């Protein structure tokens, strides 16, 4: 059954802006993006929204609903009371372009800084082989749809613009982890992750994991394992001593630091 929903939508650009009130008729089963589209179609033709698949798979419609980073297309209206005012703002970590659209190019710049996998030589028959359990380990990280909600909610850059040059963010820490766990990759990314990517800036308060629409355990399965790998390399005297007397971890053989 339809009802009238009251929405507060942030309108504006870098020069200024604010929350505007809209009342729009919505139906059972709809999501916040549906309501915004109806506002756009009936009341505010110039409302800027970035969206694409409407299925939670493209990662385009990231915004903040009642202050919480969410995908607009995956936020059901039935999660709210019919009388509740739903406030929608753009992501608050990135520069706003207009209305609900932000400039997320920070993330693409960070992606460029990450060295791609450098696989070793092929087997004699020209193929490369990985065991299934090794393949499965990285699959969780490949679910990432690059919605950048984790980047947006991470206080390291959300509350400190000055950290952006030195901090890659959770989305790229899962990429570092995926590659560092890759049995065929010949790069050792531990130093890079700690120094250039700013892994040490993360204080594991787990907000990235809380907002991930794909349910990736970013902190437990990527960031903390990467921190532990950095400890292996930099802060563990036992590992250092072992390497001096020839007890090195053979699992890392064939890797070189990037």
């Amino acid at each position, binding site marked *: 059954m339809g009802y009238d929903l009251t929405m507060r939508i942030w309108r504006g650009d870098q020069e200024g802006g604010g929350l505007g009130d809209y009342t729009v008729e919505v139906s059972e089963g709809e999501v916040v993006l549906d309501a915004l589209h109806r506002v756009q179609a009936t009341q505010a033709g110039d409302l800027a929204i970035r969206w694409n698949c409407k299925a939670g798979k493209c990662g385009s419609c990231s915004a903040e609903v009642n202050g919480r980073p969410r995908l607009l297309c995956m936020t059901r209206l039935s999660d709210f009371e019919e009388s509740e005012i739903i406030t929608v703002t753009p992501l608050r970590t990135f520069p706003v372009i207009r209305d609900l659209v932000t400039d997320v190019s920070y993330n693409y710049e960070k992606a460029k800084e990450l060295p791609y996998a450098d696989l070793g030589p092929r087997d004699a028959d020209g193929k490369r082989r990985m065991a299934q359990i090794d393949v499965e380990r990285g699959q969780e990280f490949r679910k990432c749809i690059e919605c950048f909600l984790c980047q947006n909610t991470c206080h390291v850059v959300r509350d400190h613009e000055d950290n952006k040059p030195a901090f890659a963010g959770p989305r790229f820490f899962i990429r570092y982890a995926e590659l560092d766990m890759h049995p065929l990759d010949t790069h050792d990314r531990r130093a890079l992750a700690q120094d250039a990517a700013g892994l040490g*800036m993360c204080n594991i308060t787990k907000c990235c994991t809380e907002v991930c629409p794909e349910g990736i355990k970013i902190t437990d399965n990527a960031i903390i394992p990467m921190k532990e790998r950095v400890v292996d390399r930099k802060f563990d005297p036992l590992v250092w001593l072992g390497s001096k007397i020839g007890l090195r971890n053979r699992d890392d053989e064939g890797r070189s630091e990037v």
Partner: protein
Amino acid sequence: MATTDTGVTGPTRARIPQRTLRQDRWWLAPLATFVVFAAFVVYASVRAFMGRDYYASPYLSPFYSPCLGDCVEGASDFGQPFRAFPFSAALLVLVFPLGFRMTCYYYRKAYYRAFWFSPPACAVAEPHKTYSGETRFPLLLQNAHRWFWYAAVLVGLVLTFDTVLAFRNEDKEWGHMGLGTLLMLVNIVLIWLYTLSCHSCRHAVGGRLRHFSKHPVRYRLWTWVSRLNAHHARYAWYSLFSVALVDLYVYLLATGTIEDVRFF
């Protein structure tokens, strides 16, 4: 409240003056954490500095185990190598479990949020002007977590020994059990669940590998620890309560406030 010009109220961000637009009770979890942790710290400090009422045969308080200082008769199962230590014997050993919990990945999340507001909750602006995370001293020392984990395993073994000794009566005859034994049993199970679900443990048993396929035993161990690890926070809380409860029970026995409930 606007925070800093470099944060969510910065010049390029959408102009929204509020530090958060969240309407749920986001402050409840950090507040509860603050109250409980602060209460534990006060209780543990008082008990640790007290230096008495930590042994009521056959029970030894986990805060004082192993009792290596100038301890009361019957409490030192591992000798008294630090007999000359002038302060409470608890201070000699508590530093290890304390360090283990202070550097624990779960506790870090909890106290960074609840005590340091960094951040107080997700998408709630923090009050600090600058932030360097765990890149500098003293927070760089968080990387020593695995060292405290090694120590925590030893402490766990000692507490397990204490629990075995609790299957005696006041006269040290075997084959008995009281409410204190039961509490110590529950406590040691929770302590081990917390210790073995640690992220550093998960890394050490198999997480550091790149080839699970070449290390089937370590892979199997890793899957077990991973399963426990998912509940690390829960075990952190439960074991915090259980260790305090055992100590309180021993204190009440030692001061004669209550009598031990003997089962057999």
